[in-house]
């Protein structure tokens, strides 16, 4: 059982500090699942490469879903692939995050109308945390997406959500 499975009902200063520490650890070490789908995968590789260097943010590709924290859906998701992506997502241990990279993964992109074999948006299959627009998004855009994800993680809490 992960530590995060337990929710605390009342927030206090200790939990708030622990929250900060935990969140810091999670957001500083987002290991992405190393797999690419289409055009965007090349930009994702370029982002990991020397020029943009994903590693600065602690992001390294892990090839097995078991050791990954985030999955970057980099490209067009076809119907044939969607079932596999769902399985990969399910194989990842919690807490896990999804970045949907590029128009195709966001909404079908240029294939939205006549793409008889294209899934129009990965969010029909798995929940998405951050959408990065572009076709393909520039590496800077992907980095921005990552920063947004970090921001999102920073605001997570062990406390029970009030709603």
């Amino acid at each position, binding site marked *: 059982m992960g530590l995060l499975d337990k929710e605390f009902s009342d927030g206090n200063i200790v939990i708030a500090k622990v929250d900060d520490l935990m969140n810091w*650890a999670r957001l500083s*070490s987002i290991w992405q699942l190393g797999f690419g789908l289409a055009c965007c995968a090349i930009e994702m590789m370029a982002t990991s490469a020397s020029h943009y*260097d994903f*590693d600065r943010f*602690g992001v390294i590709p892990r090839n097995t879903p*078991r050791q990954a924290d985030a999955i970057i859906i980099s490209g067009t998701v076809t119907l044939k692939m969607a079932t596999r992506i769902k399985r990969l997502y399910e194989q990842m*241990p*919690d807490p896990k995050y999804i970045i949907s990279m590029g128009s195709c993964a966001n909404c079908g992109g240029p294939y939205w109308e006549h793409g008889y074999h294209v899934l129009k948006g990965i969010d029909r299959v798995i929940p998405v945390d951050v959408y990065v627009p572009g076709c393909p998004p520039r590496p800077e855009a992907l980095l921005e997406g990552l920063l947004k994800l970090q921001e999102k993680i920073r605001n997570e809490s062990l406390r029970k959500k009030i709603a």
Partner: protein
Amino acid sequence: MYQFLYNLIGNEILAGLLVAVVPLTIILVFALFGIWLERKVSAHMQDRLGPMRTGWHGWLQTVADLMKMLQKEDIIATDADKTLYNIAPVLVFSGSFAAYAVIPFSSKLLGSEVEIGIFYVLAISSLVVAGILMAGWSANNKYSLLGAMRAVAQIISYEIPTALIVLSMVMLTGTLSLDKISQMQTSSFWNWNIFGGAIFGLSKFLLIPFMFIGALIIFISTLAEVNRVPFDIPEAESELVAGYFTEYCGMKWGMFMLAEYGNMFAVSAIITILFFGGYQSPIGYFGNSISAQWLVPFEQGFWFIAKGLTLVFVQMWLRWTLPRLRVDQLMTVCWKYLIPYAFLNLIIIGIISLL
């Protein structure tokens, strides 16, 4: 160290536990530092920066990684053999941890002064093999299984040249104790075993080339034993996804990782002791010259760690430069080249030391 603590506390178990804390701290600190170093070294070799956002040049990166791993869900596949699956990482980690018990970090800081230190290290590190095989088998994943089979074949094969070189060194020094081997190579780097040891005369000069060969062989074969490139085929990322620990997640995987880095330093330490003078300073001690004897063990610690880290750095350097061998080529290197040369080396060193 144990004796000292025993005298101080007077309780065997407590003293034993306290002694065990020392190598544990060292292995953990080294793993934290080693993983960070690996990432920085690779990054700078590749024209990148590496981790930058966690502290100064990302020095807290591994801390963040470990804390994240602690938070991860622990998945055990339904079809996995749960007992073996859970034992495996512990076994692998304890195998590499136990090796630290006899490594003399300085003349005062060593866990246990066993007389058969080097023999113990060779024996205990075989636990790792069992752990790896368990990990690969129990995960019920074909990639894990392939990785485990490769790992076992590789580690067991490469133990032979390692053992042969160790044997020749034992023959030369006449002791199995790592501490004694270290003590022999005192006062100057000219007395290191790689330069023929602390003997004088013709045989020293005859020994030098064979010592270099021996050091090279043991470096290569230990590289293979700890699964580093170019011998990282058990976890070959591009072939087997992640090898025997494909199915492990969270801290269990973290233990494999700690064990791997622990092993890296352990084998470097063994090579240091056997060939590079152990904890002995190459240039004499500052503490002796200002007659502050208490300073000497600290200096020794410094030299030991510096030498070990240099070798670790060489391992990383190779890792980020070379491609990876294939499984049959790996075996060829071992059985056709390393073992015959190691044997030859053993015989020649034997003859020379009889002179």
